[in-house]
């Protein structure tokens, strides 16, 4: 795929989706060598790899993938704040996975299965995003299933695992409202997306003997959020680690 000559209108949507995937891939990659069991080391790395592949396809629609990943400042990233949240303990990572992969799967399914609107309302980048979504929907179904199964095991496990899973579910809840903001240039039925997400999360948490949080799904104090380039404190440190090698040794390869 070659970079288009004119800036497509769906570029903001492609960038937001690419940044979500890249940032979460980086976070999941931090587990390599540290997961509770070897199978999870492998599973989290595999999920990260799928996300990285999706990010690369989207960045390539927009320009040079390395420049976009390694040479932008924090404020230029458009990922939702949820995906940049630190890994915490394993329950925290699973809660983040549950919230995000459920959204990701539903979003890609909607993009892949709803007929594309008239060319007048979506530009030339949108069909490429939809083509990727048809592939990503199948991959993210496995990510979602992985998170759901672990939510069940931890929530309905020991008193300690239940306590930690509930704490993670509660802590990350306030980052979930942001997922349902408009993605510029893509026609989406956000109302259905959000309602399906809420139903699915409620089903899983209930089956896992966990309590669905009732607090607001956005923080009163945030002035916008990740989609507007505003990020939480830990994101800068994550970027520093991710970008350090490329910035210190421009053009390095092996």
């Amino acid at each position, binding site marked *: 795929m070659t970079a288009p000559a004119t800036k497509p209108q769906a570029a903001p949507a492609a960038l937001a989706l690419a940044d979500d995937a890249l940032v979460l891939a980086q976070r999941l990659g931090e587990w390599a060598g540290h997961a509770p069991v070897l199978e999870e080391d492998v599973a989290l790395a595999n999920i990260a790899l799928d996300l*990285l592949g*999706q990010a690369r396809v989207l960045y390539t629609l927009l320009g040079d993938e390395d420049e976009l990943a390694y040479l932008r400042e924090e404020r230029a990233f458009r990922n939702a704040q949820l995906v940049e949240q630190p890994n915490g303990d394993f329950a925290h990572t699973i809660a983040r996975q549950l919230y995000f992969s459920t959204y990701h799967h539903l979003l890609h*399914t909607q993009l892949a299965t709803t007929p594309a609107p008239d060319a007048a309302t979506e530009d030339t980048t949108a069909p490429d995003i939809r083509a*990727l979504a*048809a592939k990503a929907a199948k991959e993210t*179904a496995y990510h979602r299933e992985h998170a*759901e199964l672990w939510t069940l095991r931890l929530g309905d496990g020991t008193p300690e695992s239940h306590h930690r899973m509930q704490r993670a579910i509660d802590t990350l809840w306030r980052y979930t409202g942001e997922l349902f903001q408009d993605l510029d240039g893509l026609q989406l039925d956000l109302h259905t997306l959000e309602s399906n997400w809420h139903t699915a999360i409620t089903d899983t948490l209930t089956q896992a003997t966990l309590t669905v949080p009732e607090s607001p799904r956005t923080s009163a104090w945030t002035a916008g959020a990740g989609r507007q380039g505003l990020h939480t404190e830990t994101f800068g440190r994550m970027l520093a680690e991710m970008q350090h090698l490329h910035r210190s040794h421009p053009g390095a390869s092996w």
Partner: protein
Amino acid sequence: MVKTPGTEAPPRPTTPHRQAPSPLEEHLRTLAGQVPDPELPVITLAELGVLRDVRLTSPDHAQVDLTPTYTGCPALQNMATDVEHTLHTAGITHVTVRTVLTPPWTTDDITPDGLRKLADFGIAPPRPQHTTGPITISLGPTRTDTPPPACPHCGSTDTELLSRFSSTACKALHRCLNCREPFDHFKEL
């Protein structure tokens, strides 16, 4: 059961209209299709179903379309390099490999020969799917897969899932409860 909306299969897009391949293009496609998969060398790219097209845009320039199994599959780069090398050896000076995503690859694209070779190699092959839409997920107890894949070593279907993700993204790790051997299952996509 978590039912995903809109799971009815969309019609499978056909290859964009192009002229029938010339005998040389057919020959090059056969050669490229014989390249072994870098990670599962028992099966070829043709058997895996990832080689979409080989055409000559000029007498010394071949364009090859490959599709990834998973979007992030790191083997794709090796496949491209191996195909380029094969076609160079066959006398084609310039080879361009394109990555195509549409229609998305599915495990139904693996040929019957490919499925048999996977099983012979000790990997439980993917089962046929009836739709190309997203997978329906059943939220059940852990360590189950319905129906469980048969053990490639002893044939028993008394097997359990150890992990959805194995040594590569396309495989899941299972264990046979009859012969106790662990095995990989090429999961349906």
